[in-house]
């Protein structure tokens, strides 16, 4: 875990400008901090030693006022731009992560990474904000203010500079030592804490179930016990975790104290002047301030660094290769499964196993097989959304792996088990080409076939009802009908339907059948993943998909 990962600058363009700006502010701040210390000392010393009056030091006070005003302005600007930059960096990373995840395909997403990405995109990346707004500026101040102030102290009084120079490396050294001592301990503890917290949430999540069994009262005591255990285990973690903070405070405060005592004793002997002594006294804490702030902000920043790391992990993931050859016309080209095998993740099974079959243009083809035999997986392979472990998908003589995916997809209308609708009205969702919308007559006929007319009749504004994001407000079945109608109205040569009856009520099956018939009449190829006999009966060809255990793959 790096305090400032170069990947952040590489992946998030807005971070680059922000780091530059903050560095510039850091340099200005360093100059102002030093000027402030020198001016305070220069204003105080003559009054204390030589009985100077306000008039004598008025010029210096004027400069001091200017420095104070400048520091306020720089600080305000830094804060203002920090928030602005943080939002932009987070937005930039979010967009990249979400789109990359989408490009990585369904297999990658279903391996549990999908929910991770959603959490990361909706909440996780927001943790970068405290990192960027609070931690990063202090980090940059530590490489500007700290060395600059130290150099000035050196010029004023080398003994004080020596004390500071000796203690500064001790700060990270002790932090690392304490950190390493506590890390394994804390990690174990964090696991325990997470588990205890999850148990309480688990009980809350299951409250409805507990109530259904009339057993909701018992766990109150359990929740209390868990809370006490959580407190105990957290406190024992904190006792260790806060040690590093104590070491930091101890070292920095003690060394400031030592510098002060040292100056005092040398002043008595007249080894240094009062003005020098005062300047060093004011500057010494400023040397340590950024380092201390890093310590204070450290815990707030770790979440952000972790979130960024997780984003980089997604962005570093290699994209599946897409070919470059334009796809052949699917209205004339047969598609062949050629010994297709895909290992099912998390199961000791190959599904589909050694699937070989051909889908001829213009025919209705049913893909059948028991649950888990790999029907949907075969469809994903055909769509080029996952790479088979063995065998290939061919279009005519071309291997799908060599074909440019976008030219492939533009010829396919695919209805997955859950359809996505474009934002906009129902009418817009149905129009394949917004410039050439279907006539009302064609539209009405298509909607009657799929049963969408019933759905639309119940919508507040009919066809012009806005669907909202992702077709919210429509049930899965209703969305399927919209997608089915859109497929019917479209002109893609191949229509792929995945379990089209799964979410419709049984009564609606005739509508699906009628739609498929209509597609056949239009000369379009239909590949349908089917459970129901009526669908299979309708098909011209039936492809049976089988799964096998993983051993069979080794031998095959």
């Amino acid at each position, binding site marked *: 875990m790096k305090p400032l990962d170069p990947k952040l600058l590489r992946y998030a363009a807005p971070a680059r400008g922000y780091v530059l700006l903050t560095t510039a502010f850091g340099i200005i701040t360093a100059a102002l901090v030093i000027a402030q210390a020198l001016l305070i000392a220069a204003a105080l010393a003559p009054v204390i030693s030589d009985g100077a009056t306000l008039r004598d030091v008025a010029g210096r006070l004027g400069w001091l006022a200017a420095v104070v005003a400048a520091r306020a302005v720089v600080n305000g600007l830094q804060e203002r731009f920090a928030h602005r930059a943080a939002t932009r960096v987070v937005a930039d990373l979010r967009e990249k992560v979400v789109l990359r995840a989408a490009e990585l395909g369904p297999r990658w997403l279903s391996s549990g990474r999908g929910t991770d990405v959603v959490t990361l995109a909706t909440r996780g990346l927001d943790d970068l904000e405290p990192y960027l707004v609070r931690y990063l500026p202090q980090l940059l101040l530590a490489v500007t203010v700290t060395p600059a102030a130290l150099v000035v102290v050196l010029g004023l009084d080398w003994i004080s500079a020596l004390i500071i120079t000796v203690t500064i490396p001790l700060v990270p050294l002790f932090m690392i030592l304490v950190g390493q001592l506590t890390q394994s301990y804390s990690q174990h503890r964090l696991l325990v804490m997470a588990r205890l917290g999850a148990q309480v949430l688990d009980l809350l999540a299951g409250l409805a179930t507990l109530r259904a069994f009339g057993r909701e009262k018992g766990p109150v005591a359990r929740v209390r016990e868990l809370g006490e255990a959580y407190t105990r285990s957290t*406190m024992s973690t904190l006792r260790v975790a806060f040690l590093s903070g104590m070491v930091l405070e101890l070292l920095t405060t003690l060394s400031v104290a030592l510098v002060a005592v040292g100056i005092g004793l040398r002043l*008595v002997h007249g080894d240094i002047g009062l003005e020098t002594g005062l300047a060093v006294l004011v500057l010494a804490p400023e040397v340590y301030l950024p380092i201390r702030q890093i310590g204070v902000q450290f815990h707030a920043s770790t979440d952000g660094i972790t979130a960024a790391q997780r984003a980089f992990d997604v962005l570093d993931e290699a994209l599946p290769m897409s070919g470059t050859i334009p796809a052949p016309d699917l209205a004339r080209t047969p598609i062949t499964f050629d010994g297709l095998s895909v290992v099912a993740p998390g199961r000791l099974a190959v599904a589909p196993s050694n699937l070989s079959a051909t889908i001829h243009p213009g025919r209705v083809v049913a893909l059948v097989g028991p649950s888990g035999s790999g029907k949907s997986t075969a469809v994903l392979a055909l769509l080029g*959304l996952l790479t088979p472990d063995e065998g290939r998908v061919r279009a005519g003589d071309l291997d799908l792996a060599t074909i440019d995916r976008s030219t492939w997809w533009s010829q396919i209308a695919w209805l997955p088990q859950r359809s996505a609708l474009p934002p906009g009205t129902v009418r817009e969702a149905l129009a394949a080409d917004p410039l050439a919308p279907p006539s009302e007559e064609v539209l009405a006929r298509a909607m009657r076939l799929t049963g969408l007319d019933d759905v639309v009749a119940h919508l507040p504004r009919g066809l012009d009802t806005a669907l909202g994001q992702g077709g919210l407000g429509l049930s899965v079945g209703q969305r399927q009908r919209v997608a089915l109608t859109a497929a019917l109205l479209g002109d893609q040569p191949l229509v792929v339907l995945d379990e089209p009856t799964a979410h419709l009520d049984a009564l609606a099956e005739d509508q699906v059948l009628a739609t498929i018939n209509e597609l056949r009449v239009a000369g379009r190829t239909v590949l349908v993943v089917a459970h129901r006999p009526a669908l299979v009966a309708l098909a011209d060809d039936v492809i049976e998909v089988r799964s096998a255990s993983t051993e069979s793959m080794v031998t095959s």
Partner: protein
Amino acid sequence: MSRWTRWRQDPLRRAVALLDIDRRHAAGAVGLGVLALGSAIALAAVSAWLIARASQMPPVLTLSVATVAVRAFGISRGVFRYLERLASHAVALRGMASLRTRIYADLAAGRIESVAALRRGDLLARVGADVDTVGDVVVRGLLPAAVATVLGAGSVALICAVHAGTGIALALCLVLAGIVGPWLAARGASTTEKRSAQARSDLAAISLDIIDNAAALTVSGMLETRRKALREADARLAAATDSGARTSGLASAVAVLATGLAVLTALVLAIPSVTNGSLSPVSLAVVVLTPLAVFEITQVLPAAAIQVHRSREAATRIMALLDAAAAGEPAAPDDTVAPPAATSLVASGLVCGWPGQPPTLSGLDLTLTPGRSVALVGPSGTGKTTALLTLAGLIPSRGGSLLLDGRPTARISHDQAAGSVVFTAEDAHVFNTSILENLRVARGSVTEAEAVGVLHRAGLGGWLAQLPEGVHTRLGADASSISGGERRRLLLARALCSPAPILLVDEPAEHLDPVTADALLTDLLTLGKSSLEATTQSQRAVVVATHRLSALAAADEVIVIDSGVVRARGTHAELLAADPAYRQAVAGEDQLV
């Protein structure tokens, strides 16, 4: 509304009250905080004195107390700070434990709708995070504010004692840094939050949509429109953040300005006093340099103010949840003696619906006696689930009568009703514990042998045999480690473990392939007829809500619900003969592939 009422009703105040904080512990934490930051201020003051006095070259012995004190303060600050952090976290953690217990207890006793709502979206995860956020107000908000108040007053008093004018100037600057700055910071944060809320939820929805439908969007080429939508929402978020950031920037400027001003005014006010002899030169160093350290106490206050604001938002959600659970709590039932479990449930003209919403089903007549099996069928959204919830007494009936062994269910306590009628929801929770413990949710006394028996009965024998740890296998968070079919069968097994004579099961076959679905439905509809040796249970009544019809020959009666009323009823065979729509629906799914 008076200020007092507003204060009484402030959700953060109410939530903090529920933390049940021990005053002595809180005072201890504040005390340690005062000692820690007080050490830093004392270090600055004594150092200033030491250096100014030393420059007058007195005998070294006169400085010895000061040099020892400076070193001592250098050490005590870190030590007290460590103790203070531990003390304040202990206070907060104990408070959070109390609040969690209170939330659980209130929801367990409260209205069912608020409990059901917990499952929706990320509300649950938010409750967890909200409790933490309310707890944070103690560590990051209230205690630092108390420490700052004590030390601010103390420092002002100290400086006033040396030089009154400077002390008053310090007080004004402290108000600027400790009240005006934090107020601005909180305002900036809340402006950003308010203006960005919509953009944030849009962003979350679009991101979720893209990930959920990644494949479909990629193939259909709609990904590009989603990318644009995401960009636009991000741009709105950026604009909203900018408006708040201006105020935040001002807050930050004010804090720095206040420190500088305090030093500057101290110089301007105190130097003439030195010149006219009313203030010693050494004291001048003290009144000028001490403020530099004093402002450390206000440094955390902007963050504290933002924390108070955030915690208030979190508290508002928690209190709303608790208020909703408490509102209109059912009147205490008039039965105090627990009768044996009822065996018959009779509904006549029953009207079902969620409280506060229009009824979804009316005119339901149903008689359940041991051994009887009934299927409720109809398209999704027709109120099957609501009917089952009403029959189980989990939501109040909206009309008609519902008698459990001849007594109105409204007058029977929830515990007793649950002992007689058990409802298994489609999305019933599988707890993150062992299989056996999950079964014991239904009845605490389930033995290992009984568990094995009941799992076999639910068709999980083969699955169980594959598990090295058998019924002691842990099931991961919300059963993520088992398949959908196994999960449904496990829920069924759990329902079977319940001693209740009446079982209500919602959509047991949803999302299963037809063979599995029909086998499960048939099992379920016939299990009530035979007595279960494992649970020494006599016959049971079973009601199943389903929209799969093929296996319903096993049911004694099928009730077809459509558009909020009972459209037809009879045995599977009767309906096939008399109801064309039913016949057509069954034909659509009849034979299996």
